[in-house]
């Protein structure tokens, strides 16, 4: 307790300053100031509220302090003041020079407020932290947070407690303050220490986060890329599908442009095709214009060459001629333009190994324009898309071209088919009409012919004078010839048709020649032309062939020889053609090779008549050719004869030709035909008989009067028995005289079994024949002989025998031979 005067000027009052726990207690007793009396007694003042003034001149320290809004002052000695200072723990600034008490209250006020706010903030921060951490599920450093929170709270507490220490305060406050500060210090140090560990972790978390973000960004980029690629692929597929779904060229190109335009969002898309001349490119298709006007640009433009030389899509300037499709309207920035070549493949260029190396230089140009004013750029994937599409278009176009070609070819073929069909039907109709005509005409012509021939032959049978007979014979012969002509015409038509076939059969070759000879002799003798017939000795008697046609041919040839000769002689030679003699054949394409089954008969008819100009020889064989040179006043050839002969000869696998030195030097007609050997067995019983005979064989010949002449008794008897067995009325004689004596026209057949070597046998035959002048009355003379060689046969023919029978002869054979003899009035057996 220190007594201090309350007022220096009032020496009467005193103030007792008592330091307490809570501050100093000023006890004012006996003071004059009404202000202090009674109201401030025993009040404790915080030191904060102490305002100190120090007076130099005095030994007193004035203590000014406010109690509420009361101010009071008292004076204490300096010693006391120092104690107070130490006791309160308050280090006050001593403004001993200039006491700044004017701003006391303001400063304090501001400090007070700031401290308060700081404390508030310091308390609220951890609350916020706790709140947000609780909200977020993930926070790995709770311990740090707690620590930090504690640190902050304590700092706040410290500041809060500071509020109480502005004024005089008690010791407890000081203690509290100190504790708080100590704690704060501890915690903050701990926190600082911990943060050294934590912060790198936090930082690394940050870097990891950054790394992941980068990665994510990268992946996003790549994703974007892939997506665009996939988009492109999808577009290509769709485009291709659209393009390839049609085979029409125009549709393909139009679709391409449309789809490209849609996919790439193009402003304009154009296709320039090369013209036919190949010197210009013509604008063929555009996207926006419906009917593009025929712009053309020369194909040699540098930009065009640039595009054509590469198979990639090339960016070109929007101002080049191919890209300037619309007039520049207004001010706009044309979009980027890309051009690509489209190869136009031809059918002939299409080779698997060549693709895509193309040998053709024909390209079309496709120009694609981005929208103007869009600032879009051509991306790589878009260019790739364009290139792929261009290739697909090329393929689709080539397919379309192939299809067009094949359609055209098919149409052509169909047309041709129709035309051919029509022609065939017309031809058939014509042939049918001709055949009908021929058939009808033949029938019509044959009917009167038949009457003529029949009646003249009947007339022949009656009694006529020689003259009349001659006339009738001529009529008959002419009629026959005319009938032959009619047959010729029919034959020719059948020959031309190819429907003609030879009637093959076995026949007597010698007999054919003989008949021709006999037919031609009268006519030749009228013209005083001697005719000679020479048959080669090795010529087989019986052959297989078409007898009728062969005879026709020989007759025709011989007849021509007779017809066209006024003088000279006619010689007919027939022999087997050897290979040497075939070499001089005029038609070298016949190589006759005789074999066991067949041989080639060569017939030469030589006359010394008018002859033929060698140049006209080929014409002779053409039908209806006008042979002026050969026409004489007698001849009236139809011109068919030789043509028909040629046809027959050809059918018989042979050839016919005429050799002549010239006019007036005669000519030789030569023909070669193939004839077959008839097959026969060694058994004489199975002799081949002429097959064309359709006569019903007579089994017996009752009452047939026959005469046998045989010098050999035995064989005479045998033959007689044989013929008697067949029912004949047989007279057998053993000598020639008897034979001549007994033979009469009652005998139908005379069998002469005589040796035919030498002339003996034939003599008797001749004499028998001479006995009967008239042909139809005399008996048939048949020789029986053991040998069948050529010479014998020839001699028999020459002499005029009607038949030759080979010994030995069986009953059956004799039967058939006799019946045939009676039927045909000629019988020449072969080997």
């Amino acid at each position, binding site marked *: 307790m220190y007594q201090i005067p309350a007022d220096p000027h009032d020496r009467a009052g005193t103030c007792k300053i008592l330091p307490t726990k809570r501050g100093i207690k000023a006890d004012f007793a006996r003071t004059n100031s009404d202000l202090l009396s009674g109201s401030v007694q025993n009040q404790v003042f915080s030191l904060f509220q102490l305002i100190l003034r120090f007076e130099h001149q005095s030994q007193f320290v004035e203590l000014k302090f406010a109690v509420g809004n009361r101010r009071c002052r008292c004076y204490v000695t300096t010693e006391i003041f120092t104690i107070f200072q130490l006791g309160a723990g308050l280090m006050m600034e001593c403004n001993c020079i200039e006491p700044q008490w004017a701003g006391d209250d303001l400063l304090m006020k501001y400090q007070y407020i700031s401290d308060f706010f700081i404390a508030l903030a310091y308390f609220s921060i951890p609350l916020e932290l706790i709140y947000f951490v609780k909200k977020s599920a993930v926070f790995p450093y709770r311990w740090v947070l707690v620590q930090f929170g504690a640190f902050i709270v304590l700092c706040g507490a410290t500041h809060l407690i500071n509020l109480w220490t502005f004024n005089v305060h008690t010791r407890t406050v000081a203690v509290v303050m100190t504790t708080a500060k100590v704690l704060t210090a501890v915690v903050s140090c701990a926190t600082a220490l911990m943060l050294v560990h934590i912060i790198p972790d936090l930082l690394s978390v940050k870097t990891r986060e950054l790394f992941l973000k980068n990665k994510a960004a990268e992946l996003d980029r790549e994703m974007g890329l892939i997506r665009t690629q996939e988009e492109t692929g999808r577009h290509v597929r769709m485009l291709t599908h659209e393009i390839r779904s049609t085979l029409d060229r125009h549709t393909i190109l139009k679709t391409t442009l449309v789809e490209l335009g849609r996919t790439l969002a193009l402003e304009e898309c154009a296709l320039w095709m090369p013209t036919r001349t190949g010197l210009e490119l013509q604008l063929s298709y555009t996207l926006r214009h419906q009917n593009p006007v025929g712009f053309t640009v020369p194909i040699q433009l540098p930009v065009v060459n640039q595009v054509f030389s590469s198979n990639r899509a090339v960016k070109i300037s929007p101002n080049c001629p191919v890209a300037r499709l619309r007039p520049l309207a207004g001010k706009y920035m044309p979009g980027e333009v890309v051009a690509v070549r489209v190869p136009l493949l031809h059918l002939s260029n299409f080779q698997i190994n060549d693709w895509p190396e193309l040998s053709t230089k024909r390209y079309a140009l496709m120009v694609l324009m981005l929208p103007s004013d869009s600032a879009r750029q051509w991306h790589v994937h878009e260019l790739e898309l364009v290139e792929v599409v261009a290739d697909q278009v090329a393929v689709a176009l080539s397919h379309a071209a192939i299809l067009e070609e094949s359609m055209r070819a098919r149409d052509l073929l169909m047309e041709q088919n129709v035309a051919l069909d029509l022609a065939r039907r017309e031809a058939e109709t014509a042939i049918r009409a001709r055949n009908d005509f021929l058939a009808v005409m033949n029938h019509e012509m044959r009917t009167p012919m038949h009457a003529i021939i029949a009646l003249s032959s009947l007339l022949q049978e009656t009694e006529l004078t020689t003259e009349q007979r001659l006339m009738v014979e001529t009529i008959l012969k002419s009629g026959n010839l005319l009938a032959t002509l009619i047959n010729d015409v029919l034959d020719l038509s059948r020959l031309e048709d190819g429907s003609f076939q030879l009637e093959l059969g076995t026949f007597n070759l010698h007999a054919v020649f003989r008949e021709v000879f006999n037919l031609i002799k009268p006519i030749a003798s009228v013209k005083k032309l001697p005719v000679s017939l020479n048959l080669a000795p090795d010529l087989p008697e019986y052959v297989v062939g078409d007898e009728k046609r062969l005879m026709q041919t020989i007759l025709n040839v011989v007849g021509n020889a007779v017809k066209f000769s006024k003088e000279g002689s006619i010689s007919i030679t027939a022999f087997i053609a050897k290979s040497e003699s075939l070499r001089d054949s005029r038609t070298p394409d016949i190589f006759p090779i005789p074999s066991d089954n067949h041989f080639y008969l060569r017939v030469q008819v030589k006359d010394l008549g008018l002859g033929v100009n060698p140049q006209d020889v080929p014409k002779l064989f053409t039908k209806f050719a006008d042979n002026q040179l050969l026409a004489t006043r007698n001849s009236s050839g139809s011109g068919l004869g030789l043509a028909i002969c040629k046809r027959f000869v050809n059918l018989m696998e042979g050839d016919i030709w005429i050799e002549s030195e010239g006019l007036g030097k005669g000519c030789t007609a030569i023909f070669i035909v193939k004839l077959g050997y008839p097959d026969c067995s060694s*058994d004489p*019983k199975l002799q081949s008989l002429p097959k064309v005979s359709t006569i019903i064989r007579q089994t017996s010949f009752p009452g047939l009067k026959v005469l046998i002449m045989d*010098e*050999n*008794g*035995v*064989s005479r*008897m*045998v*033959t007689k*028995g*044989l013929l*008697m*067995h067949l029912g004949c009325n047989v007279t057998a004689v053993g000598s020639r005289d008897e034979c001549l004596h007994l033979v009469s026209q009652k005998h139908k057949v005379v069998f002469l*079994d005589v*040796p035919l070597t030498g002339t003996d046998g034939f003599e008797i035959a001749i004499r028998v024949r001479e006995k009967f002048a008239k042909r139809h009355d005399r008996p048939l003379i048949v020789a029986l002989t*053991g040998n069948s060689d050529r010479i014998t046969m020839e001699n028999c023919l020459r002499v005029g025998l009607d038949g030759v029978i080979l*010994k*030995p002869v*069986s*009953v059956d054979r004799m039967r058939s031979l006799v019946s045939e003899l009676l039927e045909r009035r000629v019988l020449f057996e072969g080997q």
Partner: protein
Amino acid sequence: MEVVQMQRRFAEYTASLFREGFLDAQFTQLQQLQDETNPDFVEEVVSLFFEDSEKLVNNLAKTLDQQNFDYKKVDALVHQLKGSSASIGAQRVKNVCVAFRQFCEDQNVEACLGCLQQVKQECFLVKNKLETLFRMEQQIVAAGGSIPVMEYN
């Protein structure tokens, strides 16, 4: 002897004749000519042949005995013989005659003489054979059987 047996024997004998070439198909033909109207036809012909051949052979022998004989004459005779033998189907005789004629053409004396001998022999043989055949036939007919008809190809 039984008829059947006789007939069988006859058939065998005939077959053997054909087989050995004494007779050929002509003989069959002759047999065929024999019927009711001509019952002994074959026999008549055969006996006629034997007479004829004997005469001819004798003639031949006489001719060939001469020093310078005429080949033509020989040929004619042989020809006759050939014709006769062929007519009745005496094959072997006929063949010899054919050869004989050839030798005549060749004017081979030796061969001709040889052939003559051959001819004689053949005629003799065939005569015997045929006589046997006829005897057999007669036996059969006497026994009441019928002559079996032969078929020879």
